[in-house]
Every structure is written in C-alpha cells, then in structure tokens.
C-alpha cells in the first residue's frame, strides 16, 4: 500500500460508487420490462418459375453483397442405390466434381475457380444429389458456364474415382475409433432396421464394387430437368437472370421421372443393445424408435412436446439430468420428424461409466413424467414462446427463405407450410402434448443402445432386461483390395477395428 495514492483512490472509489448507484437507479429488473412489438417484417419471397420441361427455378435477388450462389437439387439419392454397391451415390457426389468435364479435368477446374475464390461443388444425400456454385458477381458468367458444363458433360475420370474410394476406405477403417461415429451408425440401424436404405453402411466390398460406369449411368438416369429444383440468390437483376436461365434450360428435354424406392418401416425390436468399447470411461445411451412424418397432424404437438422434453437449455432433460443431477454434459432428444419418411426418435445422453444404469433410469423417469401429467400453463407457454418468438430466425435472410421454399417444393409440401406451422403451434394444448408423449415415446417399445466399457458400469445392463451384444467388427476388405492395400492390411491381420 502506498500512502500517497490513497486519497486519489478514495475519491475515485466514491465517484465510481456514485456512478454505479446512479446506474442501478435507472435500470429495470428484467421481469418488469415491457417490449415494443417486433416491427412487421415481410421477408422477400423468391419468384417461382416452372419451365415446360418440368424444371422448377426459384429466383431470390439479394443485393447486400456482390455475390451470387446457385444450388440445383436433383431427385434420387443413396436410398436408391443397390445394396451391393452402398457408397455409389457418395462416390458419385464426390467424383462428379473432382472428375471434371469432357474438356477440363477436375484439377484444371480447381485452378481456374480458386484463382477467382469461386466454388463449384457437388454433393450426395439420401434422397437427392446437388450441384452448387458460389462466386463474386463479376465472375458469374464464366463460372456459370463451367457449372453448366459439369451439369451436362461430367467425365467421372477414373483416377478421381480411385482417390474417392481410398478416402472412403479410410473412413471405413476408422469408423470404430470415435464413439460418436459408432453411436450414429448403430442408432440408425436400430431405429430404421439394418437393411433399411436409410441405415446401410458402406463396406470395403460394396465400395470396391462401384465402377466408373455406375456413376455415368446414375447421371444418365437421374439428371433431367423435370427432377431438378434450382435456386439462385444474390446480386443480380431478376428479369435479366430469368431470361438467361430460361434460355439456358428451356431446350433441355424432359427425362424419365425419378422415383424413390418404397421403404417398409417396422418398429425396432425393444430391448438393450450393447457395444463394448474398452478405451472409454463414459457411456453413450441412445433410446431409439421410429418417429413421424412432418405432414402428420400431430407434428405441431410433437414440436411443442419436444421443446418441453429435450430441446435446448430450458428443457426437462437439460434441467433435470444435466443441471440438477450433474449426470451429463450432453443430453437431449425427442420424437424425430422428417419430410418424406418417419424421423428417428432418439433420446440420448453421455454419462460416466459408473452411472450408466443410473443414467438410463433417469431418462426413463423423465419419460414417465412426460406421460403422467400435462405440462403446467407456464411450461407450455414457455415452450410455445420459444418456438414462436424465435420464429423470425427461420427467415431472417433471403437465403434462408429460399432454402425453406426449395425444401417444400422438393417434398411436395405446401409452400406456405412455415406460415401454417406458426398458427398451428399456437393452438397446441397441454393435453395434446401429453397425448403425443404417450403415443410416440413408449418405454417398452424403445431399443436402448449403450456404447460403453462395461467393466466400469455401476450395474450390468442385464439387470434391466435382456441384452443383445452388437458386433461392430469391420468386415475385412475383399482379397484383391487387401493385396492392393499392402500385405498387412488395415489394422493388422485380423482386420481393422477389432475391439
């Protein structure tokens, strides 16, 4: 303490104290604040055009930045690939771009595009593939020409197919290294069924079976204007752009209609499923079932129920299992929903090995509570407020509005689905919340997956019920591939990933 400073410090302190007091005199406690209404906001809707050949185009001008982006979503995805060639569409989604066009290799495209900081990329999905571009406005014409070249004249060069396969083999060899990857895979297999196209895994053999002509054939079969929804957003003149796109795509002849396979969904077989992993000290628990479609009339009540049960920082799972019991860092879940097939219901938590059974019981307790008593008025209001007050973030940029509309178009949902969603959420009652909880989360119908190290468990899972051991051993590569990979093969002579 230096004496000569103390006077100054005293004065300063009293000044600061005064300032702080003045400050606090003016502030209003949070629960007494009144909010002005949110200004009316009518986000700009994209213009929808349908060409004579069936192609649908959405134009969404946005002049904030001198950028343009285009995405074409094409019907047909990995659920349509043959079981013996799982991985075909993933390889297609990669090699479509990297394999280049008839006149330019993928590497040449990379050099040209990167010099302009522009991107053209292709991607794969379960029910569609896509080809997109993003570039500075001034580069649009040449970049779009290259995009069209790739759309119409892909070459699928063999060296890039080989490269993509090698990367996929690496993924297969490594798929048991991380818990999250095991859980993701096995959850889908349990909820949807292991032979369901939504849950099939790539294997060394199925990837090795894919040939260049499979990619060529896929492109011929699926890439037709009547299967394409194209969205363009950014800094362009809509009239001129519409004319340009019409001129570009009008003459493209119609092709055969893409059709998704009929997938049969059956309820998972209830019980406990266990994956042993000895190098971890934390279990992941996933309670699984089939969920619902978004066109199910219960969708709105399910959305509110999910919010109360397992969505976000104020949900019951977060409050009771994380905050109150300290059992988990990661916990959440609810009834799964999807546009074109039942979603995956998943209630998931990660807890230390020696609270594995305690954790399962804690989840069960929350399920019971959800079913026994309707939420009180406060809880219901908070859940609805969460959905409705944050609604603006569904469409706070022109790009988001465009993506939303493209999704409804793709799945044949009404284009005003989002607006309807808002009014339907408003109507959900506490009783409906309980009804859907009872209907869609039933303890005795859940498949409960546990990935963990059972030597450290608090109690063995068998004390809860019959346990099925899940073997995650990776099937070894076929002989020719093994030779190509080198004598030892991945992960030693027993094949990779032996636990």
């Amino acid at each position, binding site marked *: 303490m230096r004496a000569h400073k103390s006077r100054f410090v005293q004065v300063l302190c009293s000044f600061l104290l005064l300032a702080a007091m003045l400050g606090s005199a003016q502030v209003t406690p*949070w629960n007494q604040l009144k909010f002005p209404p949110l200004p009316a906001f009518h986000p700009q809707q994209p213009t929808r055009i349908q060409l004579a050949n069936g192609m649908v185009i959405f134009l969404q001008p946005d002049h904030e930045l001198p950028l343009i982006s285009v995405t074409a979503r094409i019907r047909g995805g990995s659920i349509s690939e043959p079981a013996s060639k799982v991985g075909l569409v993933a390889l297609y989604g990669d090699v479509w771009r990297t394999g280049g066009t008839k006149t330019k290799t*993928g590497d040449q495209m990379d050099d040209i595009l990167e010099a302009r900081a522009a991107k053209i990329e292709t991607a794969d999905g379960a029910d569609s593939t896509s080809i997109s571009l993003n570039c500075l406005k001034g580069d649009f014409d040449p970049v779009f020409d290259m995009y069209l070249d790739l759309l119409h004249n892909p070459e699928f060069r063999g060296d890039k197919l080989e490269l993509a396969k090698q990367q996929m083999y690496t993924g297969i060899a490594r798929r048991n290294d991380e818990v999250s990857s095991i859980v993701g895979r096995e959850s889908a297999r349990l909820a949807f069924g292991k032979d369901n196209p939504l849950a099939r895994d790539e294997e060394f053999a199925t990837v090795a079976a894919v040939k260049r002509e499979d990619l060529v054939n896929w492109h011929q079969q699926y890439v037709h204007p009547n299967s394409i929804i194209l969205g363009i957003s950014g800094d362009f003149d809509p009239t001129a752009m519409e004319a340009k796109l019409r001129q570009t795509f009008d003459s493209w002849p119609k092709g055969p209609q893409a059709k998704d396979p009929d997938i049969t969904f059956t309820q998972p077989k209830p019980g406990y499923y266990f994956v042993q992993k000895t190098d971890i000290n934390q279990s992941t628990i996933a309670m699984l079932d089939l969920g619902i479609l978004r066109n199910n009339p219960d969708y709105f009540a399910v959305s509110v129920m999910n919010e109360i049960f397992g969505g976000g920082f104020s949900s019951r799972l977060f409050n009771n299992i994380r*905050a109150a*019991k300290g059992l988990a860092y990661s916990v959440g879940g609810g009834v799964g929903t999807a546009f074109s097939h039942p979603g995956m219901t998943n209630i998931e938590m990660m807890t230390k090995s020696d609270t594995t059974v305690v954790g399962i019981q804690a989840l069960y307790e929350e399920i019971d509570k959800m079913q026994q008593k309707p939420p009180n008025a406060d809880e219901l209001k908070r859940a609805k*407020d969460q959905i409705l007050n944050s609604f603006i973030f569904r*469409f706070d940029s022109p790009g988001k509005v465009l993506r939303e509309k493209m999704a409804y178009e793709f799945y044949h949902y009404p284009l005003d689905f989002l607006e309807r969603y808002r009014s339907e959420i408003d109507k959900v009652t506490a009783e409906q919340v309980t009804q859907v909880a009872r209907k869609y989360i039933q303890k005795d119908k859940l498949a409960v997956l546990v990935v963990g190290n059972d030597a450290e468990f608090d109690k063995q899972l068998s004390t809860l019920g019959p346990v099925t051991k899940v073997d995650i051993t990776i099937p070894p590569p076929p002989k020719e591939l093994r030779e190509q990979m080198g004598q030892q093969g991945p992960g030693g002579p027993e094949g990779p990933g032996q636990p």
Partner: protein
Amino acid sequence: MKRSFANLAALLLALTLPLAAQDMASFEKRVTVKTLPNGLTVLILRRPEAPVFSFFTMVDAGSAQDPLSQTGLAHMMEHMAFKGTPDIGTTNYAEEKVALAKVEQAYAAYEAERIKRVGRDPQKLAQLKKEWQDAMAAADKFVIKNQFGEIVESHGGVGMNAGTSYDDTSYMYSMPSNMIELWAAIESDRFANPVMRDFYKERDVVMEERRMRTDSNPTGRLIEQFLGTAFAANPYHRPTVGYASDLQSFSATDAMEFFRQHYEPSNMVIALVGDLDPDQVMPIVERYFGQLPAKPKPAEATTIEPPQNSVREVKMRDQAQPIYVEGYHRPSYLDPDDAVYDAITDIMSNGRTSRMFRSLVRDQKIAAAAAGFSGFPGNKYAHLFAFYGVPLPGHTNLEVQKAIQNEIAKLKSQDVSDEELQMFKTRTMADLIRGLASNEGLAQQLAIYQTRYGDWRELFRYLDKVEKVTKADIRRVANKAFQESNRTIGSIETVTEPAAAGKGAN
C-alpha cells in the same frame, strides 16, 4: 437499405489494395464504438436486413489464466455464467446466499481433510463430505434451474452459447431486435452480479465434458499429450477443460476469485450487430452495463515459452487408427510476419489446390487428408504452426511424416508460384466479403479485432498486410520456423490390445 455493404464490397472487389481510406470510411459510418467510463468497450454495427440482432462478448481471459493447480477454472467460470444472479435463478436470494456460504464453508473443511497427505481420517472425511452434501441440498431448494437460459429462449433467443479457449472466453446469441433492453438487463446482470449456485454439480457436468472430449476420444487423448510436450513453460501446455484432479478440487470461491480478477469491464468487449439504431441502443447499453464496477485491466503475466532446442516426441499406442502431427513454435499473432504464416497456411492447406492435398492425397496417395495450420492451440502467445496427416489404410505415419517434411523443405528452398501467392490474396479478400453476410459472424469478428488490436478497423487493415506478403517472405519465415530442433511430433500407433481411458479420480 438492402445495399448496406455493397459499396464497400465493390471497392474491395476492385482489388484497390491497400484499402483506401475512403473505403474504410463507408464502413466506419455504420460502426459506433464507445468505451464506457468503467472501461467496457461497446461496438454497434447497424445491419437492418431483418428485425434481429446478434451479439458477441469477449473476455480477454482464457484457460491460459488458470491459476496453478486450478486448471479448468476459466472454463468452469464460463459454465457458471449461465447460473443466474440474485434476480435470476432463485426463489429467495437472501436465504440462498446464506445457504451458499455454508456450502463453501463445508466444502473448505471437506477439501482440507481430503487433501491431507498425512493423517487423513477416513471417518472424519466421510462426515465432512456428508455435511457438504447436506449443505448443497439445503441451498438447492432455492434454485430455479436454468432460468437464465429460459429467459433468453422464451424471448426468442437462438444460438445461445459460450466458449473458452486458451486465449479468451466468449458469450453469444441472437434475439429479435425488440428484445434489446431485455438483453442489456440480463447480460449486464450476469457479469455484474454472478451467483455461484449449483457449482459442484456443474463441476460434474464439466467432468463429463472432459470424458467426452479428451478421455474417451483418441484425438483428444493425443492432443492433450502433444501440447503437454510441445509447451513446457507457457500455459498452453495445460488442457483448457482442466485436469481431472483439479476439476475435483477447486471451489466456487476459487471461481469467484477468477471472476473478480478477469471479468473487469476494461477486459471485455461487446459487439452488437443487426437491426439496431446506435442512437437509441447505446444509451440503453450504457445504462445497464454502467453498473459493472470499474477496475484496472488485470496485469498480463504469462511465462514466455523458451526456445526449443531439441526434437520432442509423443508416440501414443492406442486402439485407434494412425494419425500423425508435427508442430513448430512460432511467435504470437502480433508478430510482423503473422500474415506470412497465413499465406503458408493457405498455400499448404486450402482446398484441392493446396500443396499438401495435391502431394500427399492426390499424387502420393498415402493420406486421406493432410494440412498445416497456425494458431494452435491459441494465438495470443507464441504458439505452434502444426501439420497433420491421416494415413490411408496400409500406409504409415512414417510415410506421412516424410512427405510432410518434403513439402516443408520445398517451401524453404524454392519460391512459391505467382499463382499460389495471388490465390491466397484473392481468397482472403473474398472470405472477408463472405463474412459480412451474417450478424453472428460480424459480431464475432468485430469483438475479436477490437480485443486483440484495440481497434476493429484492423479487420480491414489486415488486407494491407496480406497484400504486402512476398515470395521471399514465405521462404524466410519457413526457414526461420520449420527447424528440426523446433519440432514436436505426435502420433497414434495402432495396437490391438485394449488401452484404458483415463478413469479420473472418484
């Protein structure tokens, strides 16, 4: 209104670098900066695209500031900032305060017995543990769980999160713009009057986070060992999440002490971006955040890592598949060559045109992925430039190591091409433009640059530095940094027998 950034971006686009003063002026008009009397710096950027806003609060203290034997405390404090205040999260603060004080007393007594090296009395320990647990149960009765998060979410807040790095701690979410006063009320309260309620349960939550990210994850296990080897003196050698024994020992009192030392208004920057009129919003921010008491910015005392003079290596035998990483010490972000390191990162690692992709992945076909990057594990202090490779099945870490070192040797002995250098410059500018498209991203950038350089304008001035990078700079810096004696190697070598995860004490 819709063309808010078009002029600026167009000028950037014209590639008239270095950035003319006039361009900055057009952006400057949209940014309001004010340092309040208590030292807090506030930035407001008006972007009226939609009636929403995002904020990013940066506290210039991270896990590098964790006290000795209290690793994980900065991160713990971040978790505690969601636990509320005397007005948020309690049914009766007056009584809760008394109960919480008892928890601390009971914990101190328990902890004093627990850490006794000699003469610990197991019976007494059990009794003290019970007293501590009873005290927690008594305090728990007053708690409204997660009321802070509930207020944010029920008023339309999205993307609520926070993060702790070695260098800093940050808090963020977005809200509808009519909620700005609510935001100011709860965010200022959170940093003026934090309450350490539910501290010990949250410690358990953080232990679960450690198990998830580190103990039960092979890459997490490797990185913890790797950093512990590459750094000996600087706090970068310790894990941000904390060691298990520290996580099971520090107290709410310790966290409060960390808060008092580091969460000073002068040590914090808040950036707000969205549909906000600075003339209306700044007075609100001043009114609420003026409550935070002023204190001097904490002294920056960090051990400087001494020069490394020999190769170091961590070879982890694990059931996971092989991974290879090597790191080289480099100076902090304030080094005049910072942009040169960024050029090296871009040329070596950015996408399918990058050298490491083309060499290791495309041509040699030995790796599924390979890249080099700076800022590991932070950049406020001298840190690492690291390279990594993921071997393909049937290929080894040794092959990857050789290939990486060949690429480094090339960088040291030959100039990069004009095209490569230009690509780096063009991409940096385009990335800056793309970053202007989101409230969240802009708030983050403004807060970071204001904190790290004392002036958000550095975000644009950085382009000048990028433009000045030459081929000779790249060779010079590569020769300086990428020396064998400055190298630390980390790898996972696959074994089939089980390797136990760190069990943690219990």
